[in-house]
């Protein structure tokens, strides 16, 4: 029944979504898996990145070519189609600027939001961030300069000047996976460092961490800055890939999807987050390829997919709390020092302990 299946095309589209979602999952893992901050507003920072990229690029293109029309009008969209890809330098410049600004602005918003929630526990932090995400969406739905409910479209792809669309897609997936590699490297490095040790201490018992001289609020704000910044970058990557954004791409269910990836992969393990993202985006991609060929079904396949994800989360929490790739102990050079000490005392024959 399946039509001719373009396996490589599938891999490219899966790779792009995998990259974007894995960045989100790794950043959420830093926040919740390592630091214990229940960020239920992840989608807000993702949305900030995406809308920043979208608005920056469409307004910049229109300004450079002196088009008076607003980007959400028909003339604006036509103009964007005409001028997008005209100048490689402009397209790439906008892309780079969006990435930098997306990280900084989303990060700063995350940083600022920690302060009102400093004195309350994880539950209130979660609710506040969830509410913030919804609020942002409602704002976008109603704010005309950002296209209101229709959103913005005609975002120039950074490689639009390359005539071959297939090559364009392939280059883009490399960029996305490159960002994922950097994110994962950074996350793994800070996890296996004294900083990662502090994060886990805050997660285990923030009162005790405070009593051990750690500036817990600063630690949390830092993590939320980094995590939100990473989500912002993911949003920027999404906006340029989809070439359009609208408020309904950033509903709370997206946050839940990211949570599902982290829980399935294993909370507290960055690689696990990537595994979780890979599985869930794979299923999603397969579904988008299959669904149009199913014809009319009694129940919309998308609903079934969500039901399965929901129940899967509960089952994983109940029967496999560690996830597919459980958390590993922190690896720092300290253990090398310990090993060499142990070897010395064994060679010295003293047996180690004095007492």
């Amino acid at each position, binding site marked *: 029944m399946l039509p001719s299946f373009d396996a490589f095309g599938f891999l490219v589209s899966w790779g792009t979504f995998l990259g974007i979602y894995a960045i989100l999952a790794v950043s959420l893992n830093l926040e919740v898996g390592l630091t214990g901050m229940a960020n239920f507003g992840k989608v807000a920072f993702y949305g900030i990145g995406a809308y920043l990229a979208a608005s920056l690029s469409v307004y910049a293109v229109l300004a450079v070519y002196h088009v008076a029309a607003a980007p959400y009008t028909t003339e604006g969209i036509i103009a964007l189609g005409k001028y997008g890809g005209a100048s490689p330098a402009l397209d790439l410049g906008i892309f780079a600027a969006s990435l930098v600004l997306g990280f900084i602005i989303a990060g700063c918003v995350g940083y600022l939001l920690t302060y009102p929630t400093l004195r309350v526990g994880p539950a209130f932090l979660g609710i506040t961030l969830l509410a913030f995400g919804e609020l942002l969406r409602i704002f976008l739905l109603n704010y005309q300069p950002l296209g209101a409910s229709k959103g913005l479209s005609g975002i120039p792809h950074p490689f639009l000047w390359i005539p071959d669309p297939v090559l364009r897609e392939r280059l883009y997936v490399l960029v996305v996976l490159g960002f994922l590699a950097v994110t994962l*490297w950074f996350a793994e490095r800070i996890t296996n*460092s004294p900083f990662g040790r502090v994060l886990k*201490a805050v997660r285990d018992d923030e009162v005790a961490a405070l009593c051990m*001289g*750690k500036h817990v609020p600063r630690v949390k704000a830092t993590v939320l800055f980094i995590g939100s910044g990473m989500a912002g970058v993911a949003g920027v990557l999404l906006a340029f890939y989809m070439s359009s954004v609208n408020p309904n791409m950033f509903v709370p269910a997206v946050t839940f999807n990211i949570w599902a990836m982290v829980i399935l992969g294993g909370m507290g393990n960055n690689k696990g987050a990537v595994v979780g993202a890979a599985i869930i985006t794979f299923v999603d991609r397969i579904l988008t390829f299959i669904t149009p060929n199913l014809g009319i079904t009694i129940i919309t396949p998308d609903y079934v997919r969500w039901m399965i994800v929901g129940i899967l989360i509960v089952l994983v929490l109940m029967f496999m709390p560690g996830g597919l790739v459980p958390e590993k102990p922190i690896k*720092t*050079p300290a*253990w090398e020092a310990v090993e060499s000490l142990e070897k010395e005392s064994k060679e010295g024959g003293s047996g180690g*302990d*004095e007492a």
Partner: protein
Amino acid sequence: MTKPILEVKDLAKYFGGVKALDGVTLEVPERGVIGLIGPNGSGKTTLFNVVTGFYVPTRGEVWYAGERIDGLNPNEVFLKGLVRTFQIPRLFPSLTVLENVLLTPPRQVGERVLTAPFRSKWEEQEKELARKAVALLRKFGLGEYVRARVSELSAAHMKMIETIRGLITDARVYLLDEPAAGVAYTTARELFTFIRRLRDEEGLTFFIIEHRLEVLMDFVDYVYVLHNGRLLSEGKPDEVMSDPKVIEAYIGR
């Protein structure tokens, strides 16, 4: 007695209408092992909470080594060299014993987020701290537990590690909240012997809340008795134990 390292002057803490502490003045001399006793709800833990920065006092002052410390945040108080332990040990359960000890040294290079990814910048410091931590653990007979998860330890060992993790930071004063609670009699005595040893060998100061007077009284130099947020009595252990006011406070309840 030598000069006081920790001084509490007319300290009061009210929660709404409840006067948890109501004008307590006491001092802890350097290299002292000082007890703090009193019936349940007499304000002992509140006193610790105010001294270590958990609460801002309603009235009064706390001085540590010639510096006023009331109103500081708990982490700032810790960095001054004042360590507290909890009635139920609060180690970090997902970290190993070594990591629990390595966590405490302040201002580690690798704890800054921008230097953390670059191992070479903090590798030496980390190894140095690890050697120091192992040496400390071995000194107190815990060398074999370096890799153990905290949850695998006995209660007495947890309490010792809670104290040891302060040692690596050169902290001077320890506030221990019921170190012998829930510990067998002989282990409790070992624990207090360990405390005396730390005082003699490292020159540390201890201020200890304890309900088990039969253990405490054999080891402390001086005892303060709190009752209903006020100082009821103070003196050498045998003086306090024979004070009729103290006996009445304990039996009268």
